[in-house]
């Protein structure tokens, strides 16, 4: 299964891939925002109010998922305005420039890089400078962490990697797995197992599941 199954990869940069499952999960992450105008009847839908005719007053803070923010945000900014989540703000940027390896990116929102790229879609008034510093900061964080990811993925053969992987966000984990796969394939080839035909992993999984069904 692993050989012939090619899922849709997440999009690069500011565009998402419509059919990519990773992108869908990523756009579910929440953003802090503010209602620019009074929003009638929205209170119930957002879980804040009682009656169905209540409106969310102007200026109140909301936490909305990215897909909703993208849909409701238009260039005149009548409805919603979004703010950057704190992880992308100044305070954290100094942490990143100090030592990027220390930060637990998985806890900070498992889609740090993807989400950050999507944030550039919103035209904030401070955006040009933020975008610039954002890109620079991203690249530097990424470069600093990348070396460690590469090192650890290429040298951890047949070990429990959960400690290494725990602090990485999804993009970095994907890279890590690619590195691991390369390493495993190489070791297979060295042992002469490259020409051995194996049962597909899909079949093996089905076999296990069938046993479980028979037992349970």
């Amino acid at each position: 299964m692993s050989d012939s199954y090619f899922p849709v990869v997440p999009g690069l940069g500011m565009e998402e891939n419509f059919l990519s499952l990773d992108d869908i999960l990523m756009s579910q992450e929440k953003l802090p925002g503010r209602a620019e105008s009074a929003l009638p009847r929205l209170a119930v839908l957002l879980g804040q109010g009682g009656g169905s005719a209540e409106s969310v007053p102007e200026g109140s803070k909301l936490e909305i998922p990215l897909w909703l923010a993208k849909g409701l945000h238009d260039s005149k900014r009548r409805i919603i305005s979004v703010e950057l989540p704190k992880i992308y703000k100044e305070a954290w940027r100094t942490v990143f420039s100090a030592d990027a390896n220390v930060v637990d990116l998985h806890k900070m929102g498992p889609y740090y890089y993807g989400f950050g790229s999507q944030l550039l879609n919103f035209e904030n008034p401070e955006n040009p400078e933020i975008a610039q510093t954002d890109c620079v900061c991203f690249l530097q964080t990424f470069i600093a962490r990348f070396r460690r990811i590469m090192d650890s993925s290429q040298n951890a053969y047949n070990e429990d990697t959960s400690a290494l992987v725990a602090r990485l966000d999804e993009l970095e984990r994907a890279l890590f797995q690619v590195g691991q796969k390369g390493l495993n394939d190489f070791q297979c080839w060295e042992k002469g197992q490259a020409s051995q035909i194996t049962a597909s992993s899909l079949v093996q999984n089905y076999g296990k599941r069938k046993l479980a069904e028979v037992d349970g």
Partner: protein
Amino acid sequence: ERNQADVSEAKSGRTDLIFLIRFRHCCLLRNQRCLLAYLYDRLLRIRALRWEYGSVLPNTIQFHMSAEEVEWFNRYKKSLATYMRSVGGEEGLDLTQDIKPPKSLYIEVRCLKDHGEFEIDDGTTILLKKNSQHFLPRWKCEQLIRQGVLEHVLS
């Protein structure tokens, strides 16, 4: 339907409802996107099944597939077969064979479960019982190995 009611209300002048329609529209689009991605992912996995497992799917898997997916699988099988016939001369080329580069014509295999009788090209039949070992031509066994019935033994 609630959206429709709001649309008609908005058209008649209440402009502050526009965002609500937009909000519901966003939700509908989101649901549509999730569904499409799920169905597409299922199709990708079914396609992988054809390459990994062969052209006949076991009943347990077929049980979980919808009628449209079964039809899609059959059509994909047909397109793949047509393509394989058109490539590689008169008999066509089976692309699902020899996924890994072969080292020899005959391979040693061990049987993992009882599979009954198995006929090879020169007419002899071999009884595949659990744990029996045989020396068989590669192209006959490849599919059975991938299905987990046989195990390739390296000497």
